[in-house]
């Protein structure tokens, strides 16, 4: 399989404080890669570097290369706005637009990118919601406010919204941490399904979730990449002592 991302010597700072140290790794296409590690190790910062969201925080900076489909997204003249259309993101706390209906929420990204044809919009809305396993639950209530859904449904709505702009990658920052176990299970099923057509990178602090959902795992500690490999190998035979200690719950 091709490498969707090739990350070379990625460093990231908040002001003078360095949060990511010289990370180099490759991310496989059409697979789920989980980023794990104790709190504060830089997991969220890492994926936010993949869609150039890190830099919108005042004082934040980045160095190194991130090759996406072979092109350095931090190269000269590259427009971050375009990047974000190809690399979607879902956040920890579901954030549907409360003043819009479910229908408008799904299509928000599309409409803001200039798509106006009602027929296309209707089709995309339905397909995105189906992809996100939400269609059956909301198909009769598309005009209800986006905020009127349950937590798990809101998160699936956000996933549908991200998918509607037809990205190639879906970045997920602890998408289930604010949800109950049943909603979590639904999203995990969804993630496995999405991996057939999208590259998914998911940050999680839950090791069992990483084991259930991912094909590859990257373990970060204090801003450094400690180990990367196939999920099965990492859990059964971790190469690094720190990895083993984290997996056995010694810290985190």
């Amino acid at each position, binding site marked *: 399989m091709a490498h969707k991302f090739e990350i070379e010597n990625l460093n990231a700072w908040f002001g003078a404080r360095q949060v990511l140290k010289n990370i180099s790794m490759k991310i496989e296409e*059409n697979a789920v890669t989980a980023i794990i590690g104790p709190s504060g190790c830089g997991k969220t910062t890492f994926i936010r570097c993949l869609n150039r969201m890190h830099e919108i925080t005042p004082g934040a900076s980045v160095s190194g290369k991130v090759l*996406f*489909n072979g*092109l350095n*997204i931090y*190269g*000269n*003249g*590259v*427009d*971050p*706005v*375009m*990047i974000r*259309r*190809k690399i979607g993101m879902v956040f920890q706390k579901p954030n549907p637009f409360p003043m819009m209906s479910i229908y408008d929420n799904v299509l928000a990204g599309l409409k803001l*990118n*200039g*798509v106006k044809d009602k027929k*296309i919009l209707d*089709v*995309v809305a339905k*397909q*995105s919601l*189906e*992809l996100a396993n939400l269609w059956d639950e909301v198909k009769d209530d598309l005009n209800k406010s986006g905020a009127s859904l349950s937590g798990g449904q809101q998160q699936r709505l956000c996933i549908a919204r991200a*998918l509607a*702009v*037809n990205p*190639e990658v879906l970045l997920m920052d602890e998408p289930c941490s604010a949800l109950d176990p049943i909603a979590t299970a639904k999203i995990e099923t969804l993630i496995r399904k999405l991996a057939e*057509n999208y590259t998914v990178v998911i940050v999680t602090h839950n090791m069992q979730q990483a084991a259930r959902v991912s094909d590859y795992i990257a373990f970060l500690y204090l801003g450094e990449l400690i180990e990367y490999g196939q999920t099965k190998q990492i859990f059964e035979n971790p190469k690094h002592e720190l990895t083993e200690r984290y997996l056995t719950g010694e810290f985190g």
Partner: protein
Amino acid sequence: MKNSRKISPFLSRLSIKPVSHLKWKIRGDDIFKLVGALFASSILLLIGLMIYELTKGSRLSIQTFGFGFLLGTKWDPAISRVFGALPLILGTVVTSAIALLIGVPLSLGIGLALSEYMPKKFGFAISFLVELLAAIPSVIYGLWGIFVLIPFLSDHVYLHLQKLFGFIPIFSGPIYGGGVLTGGIVLAIMIVPTVSSVMRDLFLAVPKSQREAIIALGATKWETAKTVISYARSGVICAVILGLGRAFGETMAVTMVIGNKFQVWPSSLFDAWYTMSAIIANELLEATYDLYVSALMNVALVLLFVTLVINILSRLIVWRTLKLVRGIAKE
């Protein structure tokens, strides 16, 4: 690059640019920021232009009278064409002082009532009513002042005041209902809403821990209130300065009740007088020659200058207070 996806083939024809067009410069954001900055700067431009125009307009008057304008006591547009603003400045200061003397205690009382004494529900209703007072236009205060307040004061209040205190010069003299005291009273009523809401917010912001500390020592409600005021001391001063600024600039209501008589000093509290803003309102349209207009613009310049100083001073105190409060909060 894109293998078969479940999303309809429609989407591949959409205008979302493919990866190869990633090399674009950010344009929209820069333009937006520039436009916003331009609009925001217009506020600075307006103030600058205001100072410039008023100074330019006052130039003739400044050239003719110099700083003596501020001390001059004659205002004679008809014959000698001499203008002096001292009586106006005094009139403004005295009426504002009266307004503060009456208004600040009232505002303190209301602020305390709303924060310490009244139950929440009533508090909202009363605050709402007080805010309505703030929304009433100045002319309507003036209208009410002429036809309701003045008759009331002259018949029911001033007569008695004179009976009781007539031996003091400021309370002697003919009563016609309007004049300095009336002007001060109307101003007081007008500044109470603003000043009292600021005080209410200040008192409400005093941390619970402070109140609880003194209540635990066995304090009465009044003693607790005194502590609250003391804690919010600099904010209270700020609110007073705010009220002063408003009183200084009030025009219509004052001019409708104060009598508009140009004199260095009134014979009593019941005598008519004049303020800076009142004379501008009354005479700018009648000013037929350049020096006259310039003198009035000079008055406006003085008024602008004084208000700016008051404003900036109070903001500095606020800034200082905030630093202090934040410092205490950090501990």
